Structures are given as C-alpha cells and as structure tokens.
C-alpha cells in the first residue's frame, strides 16, 4: 500500500460517510451499549436506579456450570479446527497444484457449493444423515453391521461433524492461497536431490505453509466457537455452548445483563483470534512484499 499521508483527503473521501454512519449507529453504538449493559444492575431506560456491578462476570467465574460451558465451547472449537485442518489441507494442496483450469474451477465450485448453502440447510442435511433413523444408521443396519442404531446425533461428535462440514471451506480457501504462493520448484528440487514426494512435502511444503495453517485454524476456531444453529440442532438442546447460553439468557430468562457479559467474553476471545489471524496472514504477505 503506497503511503498517501502527505496528500490531503479530496472530495471522494466524503463517500465514506454513509458507511461510517452505519457503523457508528449499528455497530459501535450497539457494542458499546452491550459493554455498558454487562456492568449494570438493570435496564437504565426502564429502571430509575441502576448501579455499576461486576456480578455478571463474577457469576461466570464462580459457577462451575458456566466454566464447564466455556470449556465445552473451546473443546468443540479445538476438535473442529483439528479435523478441519486434517481434511482441508489435502484438498487445498490439490487445488493449489492442479494444472487444468477446468479442474481448478470444478474444485472451487465443490468448495463453494456448501458455503453457499445456508447453515440451517446444511445442519438439516446432517440431521437426516446422523439421526437414529437417519441415512447412516439405516444403511449400516440394512447391511447387518449393527443391530442397534448408533447414537450419532445429540453428541459432541455429531456437532463436530456438522461444524467441520460448515467451516472446512474457510480452511481450504485460506490454505489454497498460501500453498499456491509456495514455489513448486522448491519441491521439485528436493525430489531431484532424492527425496520422496512425501519427504519433499514434509520438509519443504509443510513448513512453508505454516502461516496458512495458523491463519486457517484461527479462522475456523473463531467461527466454530460462535456457532449457534449446529450445536443446538445436532446437540438436541443437551449440550450447552456460549452462543446457546447467550440466546437462552435472552429468550428464556430475559437476563440482558448476563447475556451481554457472556457476549463481551465471546467478543474479546474473537477479537484476539482475529488479530492473531491477521498477524499470521501478514507473515505470508510480508514475505511476498519483501521479494
């Protein structure tokens, strides 16, 4: 990016104003209000006397139930990230290295197709696959492999399968960009020097793609811990995560202050992840800019 610090803003700069207004009114103001509500005893508009309090945050730390919810959310996020990496990497590698333009376009379509199918629809797809009378259980039972249906839904495994399916395209797209920038001649040189393709991959490509692995993992983790639909439908209201807790506090308990406090915790975690993601990607583009 060229530095334009010396130049003065011109007339076109005014075109930023509508978006600035949108962000001020519908992004910064609401988040500021959420942060305020998280440290107040009640709604300042309705109630005459509200005071500062840290009890919403204290409640999260004091009650082992909420710590368990935080841990469940993080655990689901971690497993989802690892599985998404394991199945996203080979596909990203193929996409980055495929020679045929048609082949590349088809792979891109295959990765984008699930992305462009709504989250609710994709979760529904996994419900038809994983439920007790679902496709997987019916097939296994008709083949005589199992006598009782396997409990696939209403488990953390079910949630992870659904989340991986939903977020693996983000992993693939992030990794493809990074692997595509690695000079293929490096691998060829290693192979010419006698390394097997596997060894060339492990010693050359894999280390060079580490920033992409980091960026993709952070992105998938951030998305997975903030998912609502998949954990609630595939978990059958039995497994509690932070987003589910937030919605429950609003819809069932109408405890706006506590919901806001959980929201702020989730926001801080996500912000840290986003900053780390940008740093990781900066490693890649920084390398390129130096060349």
């Amino acid at each position, binding site marked *: 990016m060229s530095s334009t610090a010396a130049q003065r803003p011109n007339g076109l700069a005014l075109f930023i104003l509508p978006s600035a207004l949108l962000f001020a009114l519908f992004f910064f103001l609401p988040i500021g209000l959420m942060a305020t509500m998280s440290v107040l005893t009640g709604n300042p508009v309705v109630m005459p006397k509200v005071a500062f309090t840290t009890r919403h945050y204290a409640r999260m730390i004091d009650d082992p139930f909420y710590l368990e919810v935080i841990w469940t959310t993080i655990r689901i996020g971690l497993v989802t990230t690892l599985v998404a990496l394991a199945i996203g990497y080979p596909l990203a590698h193929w996409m980055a290295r495929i020679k045929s333009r048609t082949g590349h376009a088809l792979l891109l379509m295959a990765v984008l197709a699930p992305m462009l199918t*709504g989250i609710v629809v994709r979760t529904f797809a996994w419900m038809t696959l994983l439920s007790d009378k679902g496709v997987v259980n019916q097939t296994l039972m008709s083949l005589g492999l199992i006598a009782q249906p396997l409990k696939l839904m209403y488990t953390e495994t079910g949630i992870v399968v659904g989340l991986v399916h939903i977020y693996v395209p983000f992993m693939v797209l992030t990794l493809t960009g990074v692997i595509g920038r690695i000079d293929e001649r490096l691998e060829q040189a290693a192979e010419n020097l006698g390394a*097997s*393709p596997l060894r060339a991959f492990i010693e050359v490509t894999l280390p060079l793609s580490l920033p992409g692995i980091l960026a993709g993992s952070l992105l998938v983790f951030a998305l997975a811990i903030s998912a609502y639909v998949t954990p609630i439908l595939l978990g059958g209201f039995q497994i509690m995560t932070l987003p589910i807790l937030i*919605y429950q506090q609003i819809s069932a308990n109408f405890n706006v202050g506590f*919901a806001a406090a959980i929201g702020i915790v989730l926001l801080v975690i996500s912000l840290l992840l986003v900053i780390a993601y940008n740093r990781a990607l900066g490693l890649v583009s920084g390398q390129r800019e130096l060349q």
Partner: protein
Amino acid sequence: MSTSTSLAAAERATPVRTATVPRHYGRYLYLAINIAILIFLLAPIAIVVVFALNPTPFIQFPPVGVSLRWFEKFFASRDFMHALWFSLEVAVLTTLSATLLGASAALALARGNLPGTRLIVATMLSPLMLPAILTGLALFQTYVLLDVGRPTWGLVAGHTLVTLPYVVRTTLAVLHNFDTRLEEAAQNLGASPLRTFFEVTLPLIKPGVLAGAIFAFIVSFDQFPVSLFLVSPGNETLPVTLFNYLKFDLDGTIGAASVVSILLAFVVVIGLDRTVGLRSYVKL
C-alpha cells in the same frame, strides 16, 4: 489400507531408490483421500435433494421413489411462502443498501486520500470475522433500549452490516487493479469529474460491485444468527422458519424448502461466474 501395504511392499521389493512405483501408488492415495473429502463436502447436499424428492414422510434410504408432493406442500404452506417472500424482500433491500454504501466506501478508500485507510478497511471487514450472533445480540439490546420494536429496517440494517464487507472487498479489489491514468486522461480531455466517474470509473468497477452485490444477496438470504434476534413473530425469514420447524420435526417439506434455497443460490452463483468470473473474488 491396501494401498499403503502395497506401497510398503513395493519399497521392500525395490531397494534401489527409483521411487517410481511408490510415487505411482502415492499419487493414487492422494487422489483417493481428496475424492473422499469431496464426497464428504457434497454428499450432504445431495442427500437433502434425495430426501426432498422421496415420497415417504420420514427418512428412507435407499429412496423408494420420486415425487413432488413436498414441493407442493412447501408452495402451498402459508408460513413458508410468507417466510420466502419476506426473506427475498430483506435480501433485496440489503443488497441495495450494502451495494450503495459498500461501493461508495470502497471508492472513498481507494481514491479519497483518506488517512488511516488500513485501519478503516480492517474495521469495515470486521463484521465478517466477529461472531454474527453478537451483532444480533448487540442490535437487539439497542432496539430494546431505544424502544423501537423490531422493524424491518432494523433487520435490514443488521444484514447490511454483515454483507457490506463483501461489497467493499470486491470493489476495492477492482479499484486497486485499474489504471488511474484512464480517469486522468478523461479529465485532461475535458470531462468533468462527475462525467469521468459515470463514463470511466463506474463501467470499470462494475464487475467488482456486481460480484459484491451477488454475495450480499446470498449471504443475506441465508443469514441466520442476526435474524434470530431481530425478526418478530409472524414476520420471520426463511432460515428462521426452517430452524423453528427443525426443532420439532424432520419433514420432507423442510427438504423441499432447502432445495429451493440451494437452487436459488446456485442460479445466482452461476450467473456470477458467467458475468464476472468467480476466481478473483474468493480470496479470504
């Protein structure tokens, strides 16, 4: 499994490091793994279509026949039709506002000599990375505090916030790639800045704006977490209606509704690919 054992066998058989045989098998293993991953990605979508066309009211696999009864039921359902039209209404309004705001913001960022451009871009892209459920929650709390109820414009504002980043990104990508001398040439030949904008800049950035608009439409049409907090009962978007049905039942009508929304996204994406090409707009 058998590939890896034969790979080991081949290695034992040829102590000389020719590596041609294992490379051959390794290539097959690589393709097999990738095809399995592609099946994992695409099979669930195929299953939805199978389920929607299956005449039985419960999941049956393998399917027993083909019927359109669930589609008839979907199009006859007042709830689903209302939700479908409301979703389309919100998506169209969102696309208009996100495109207008996003494209002008991109223009200001690329041509306006604004200080701190990098920070502004990062801020404008942030709704993409921050949990959408928090955007929904924060807007919900704000509307409650300000006592404005749950108006459609409130929902559209929320959707605009989460779709604007797509338009900003695709428009910026085009603006960064084009030659500013074209605009200078037009002005040197006597065109006013306004005329230069409409006759040179706008036609050149159109593909980027269009791609962003199409992304905005699809993202808004499929949006769930923001809508969850901002819809009012009786005025729900299609994903929220689907979600409410799913909480109780797995019914073929949901399959039909899903197929309709998948088809809509596909038509739009194929249109996008035909008009401006996909490749350049999917960088994260």
